[in-house]
């Protein structure tokens, strides 16, 4: 099954079947939102495809240019709503970097714990939907069960489950609630067993292997040229993780490894993300052990005014490198605030990955790219 001939152009045969144009989405169960993929099919084989995005476009970057710095932060929660914490972190860090603000250590550690928890919840949602796309419904609900535990912690901490928001420029709005540490520890103790459960269902499953091994292969060179980041890039064997190359918050103090695949197929991306979850748990445990006392909010001027200049800051979001490019003219609003969306760039690789495969593989590849349309369309 991994030797499906890649017939990328239409071969002329005696019995030519007509090519069919199939519009997959924007309302489709496995395009993960309002993505529309226009497939040109020869039978079930994809001859060409085009992504039609922008159904969720809200003009976020235009709005940013007309809002004060503190007002912008909540918008970021709505971009990648699966990983609202990571997005919020990206924004506050960028502004802090541009203003040269110091964040108290306790806030740094709390930020790391919450961001890694958010990475877990995002990866669990990816696993759930990816498995569902390939037909494994049970994994979907198993993963949601664990995600629910994380969301409970989030609800206690942020007062919200999805669009979590507690990071402020210069620190955090409030400290952790009393049972926070115990709850996170309880979850971390439980989590490895649950991960093993998923792997029992999938790792050695013949059908799962058949559907993922050798599907949507992308070489390391192509992946770099396509600008892929996150698990799609690491699945191809490129060792790149912003947490290591350009450590922010307290990542430099924490020990963790970067999982690297080698074949660049859907299965490797799956393995990489599964291992990333283990590493995230490791990070959370370490951060909890070292969690210092102290204030969570640093010294921040009353009116947030970013000095003229520009800064590009990136963090390792669950879906890849999230970048933010801030151009300031010294005022209270950004002159230009550009988000480098990881999903947007990653989705650009879909054509390269999926042309020549079957309709079912397109679904599997979209799942393995782990996109979120709120971030793509902005």
């Amino acid at each position, binding site marked *: 099954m991994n030797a499906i*001939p890649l*017939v990328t152009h239409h*071969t002329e*045969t*005696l*019995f030519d*079947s*007509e090519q069919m144009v199939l519009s997959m989405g924007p309302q489709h169960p496995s395009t993960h939102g309002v993505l529309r993929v226009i497939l040109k099919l020869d039978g079930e084989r994809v001859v060409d495809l085009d992504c039609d995005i922008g159904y969720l476009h809200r003009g976020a970057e235009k709005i940013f240019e007309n809002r004060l710095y503190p007002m912008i932060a909540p918008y970021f929660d709505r971009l990648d709503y699966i990983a609202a914490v990571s997005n919020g972190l990206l924004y506050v860090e960028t502004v802090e970097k541009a203003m040269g603000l110091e964040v108290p250590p306790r806030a740094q550690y709390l930020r790391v714990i919450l961001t890694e928890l958010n990475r877990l919840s995002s990866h669990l949602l990816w696993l759930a939907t990816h498995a569902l796309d390939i037909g494994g419904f049970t994994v979907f609900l198993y993963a949601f069960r664990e995600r629910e535990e994380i969301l409970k912690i989030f609800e206690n901490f942020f007062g919200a489950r999805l669009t979590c928001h507690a990071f402020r420029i210069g620190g955090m709005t409030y400290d952790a609630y009393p049972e926070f540490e115990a709850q996170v520890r309880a979850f971390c103790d439980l989590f490895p067993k649950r991960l093993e459960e998923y792997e029992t269902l999938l790792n050695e499953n013949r059908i799962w292997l058949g559907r993922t091994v050798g599907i949507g292969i992308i070489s390391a060179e192509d992946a770099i040229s396509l600008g892929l980041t996150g698990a799609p890039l690491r699945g191809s064997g490129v060792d790149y993780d912003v947490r290591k190359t350009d450590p922010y918050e307290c990542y430099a103090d924490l020990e963790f490894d970067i999982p690297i695949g080698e074949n660049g197929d859907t299965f490797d991306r799956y393995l990489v993300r599964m291992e990333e979850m283990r590493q995230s748990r490791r990070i959370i445990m370490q951060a909890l052990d070292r969690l210092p006392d102290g204030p969570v909010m640093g010294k921040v001027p009353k009116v947030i005014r970013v000095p003229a200049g520009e800064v590009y800051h990136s963090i390792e979001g669950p879906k890849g490198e999230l970048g933010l490019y801030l151009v300031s003219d010294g005022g209270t609003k950004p002159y230009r605030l550009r988000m480098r969306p990881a999903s947007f760039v990653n989705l650009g690789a879909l054509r390269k990955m999926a042309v020549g495969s079957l309709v079912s593989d397109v679904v599997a590849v979209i799942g393995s790219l782990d996109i979120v349309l709120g971030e793509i369309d902005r």
Partner: protein
Amino acid sequence: MLLVGWEAVFFWMLTLVALFAAVFTVSARNPVHCALFLISTLIAKGALFLLLRAEFVAGAQILVYVGGILVLFLFVLMLVNTRSEVENPFNRQDKVGAFIAALVGLAILGAVTYTQQRGGFFKTKPSADRMAIENAKPDPNAPAGVISADTETLGVTLYTRAVLPFEIASVLLLMAIVGSVLLARDRRQEETYD
């Protein structure tokens, strides 16, 4: 064989269904409708086999023709764009066609009537096997679960007396399959697979 009672009612019903469906098969514009009428004909004929107490043949008829061949027919019809056919019906040469069909039909009718009246054109006697099959009486002492006589007879005949035609037919079908596979495969496919 005389038809009496319910048998006669069923016979005429099924025959009429088969005939009309056959006519519609030819006259329907939409190829999928044609296939549907053909299916009706075949099912009616399958039921007619039941009246002849040829249960195995009836079952095999539906299984092979309806479940196999016509499903593949439909498979192909769905792949082919048939809209143009529906919109532009083929050139009707109905008068000549009707005349020829009527002629052939009359000839067949005459031949059948003649055969029925005179006991066949060649007045041959039925063979011993044929007689044995026709005169097969149920064995009153046979216990439950006995394979029905027609299936068993068919099997025995196929593998003993009719083994040569059976094998020839098999080889022919095999050749047809190989030939169609060869026709359908193009060079690139062969290179990738071999």
